[in-house]
């Protein structure tokens, strides 16, 4: 019974990730794309956790916390890059 509910959640999250992926490709500026990538990775965290519980296999959920740390690092690095680029322009 739990598997049925979890499979609904997997479908909803995959649809949501597809909608957000369109914004990554279409985003007019760099911050738009990075913001949409941020939301995709945070959705993928939940998706990995759901799939891991669905198959009762804990190995897939090992990568969840490093992925969250990685996307935080990406935000900081892109922000520093943008500020440096803006300083060179002036």
């Amino acid at each position, binding site marked *: *019974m*739990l598997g049925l*509910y979890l499979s*609904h*959640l997997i479908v*909803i*999250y995959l*649809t*949501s990730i597809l*909608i*957000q992926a*369109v*914004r990554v490709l279409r985003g007019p*500026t*760099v*911050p*738009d794309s*990075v*913001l*949409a990538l*941020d*939301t995709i990775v*945070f*959705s993928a*965290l*939940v998706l990995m*956790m*759901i799939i*891991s*519980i669905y198959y*009762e296999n*804990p190995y897939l*959920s090992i990568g*969840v*916390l490093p992925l*969250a*740390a990685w*996307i*935080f690092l*990406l*935000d*900081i690095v*892109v*922000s*520093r*890059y*943008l*500020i440096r*680029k*803006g*300083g060179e*322009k002036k």
Partner: protein
Amino acid sequence: MNIGLIIGLALAYLGAALNIIGAVGLHRFREFYRRLHAATVVNIGGTFYPLIGLGIVAASVDWPMTLKMYYIGIAVTTALFAAFASAAGSHALARGAYRSGEAKPQVWADKLEEKTKPKG
């Protein structure tokens, strides 16, 4: 179904609905600074609540105790870290976008620009 499973799945479904709403909001809003609102709906509503809910789900099914504790630990730790990282990350991104002039805010009056502009 026991009560923990119902509460956990309700939180997970609430998070899935908020995730879809935020994903649509990323397309409906026109500029970067308004999309930050939609991104926060995805990051907090669509990640923090479902992870807590999945932790409750894992606690209330009859699995071995070590497996349960593994899932609860990962779910709660990641939920707390995501709540911190999404707020700090989007703040840093907005600062970078504003300071570099990459995304111009569409506003009537920009008081921050007057304050940060060098005098003279």
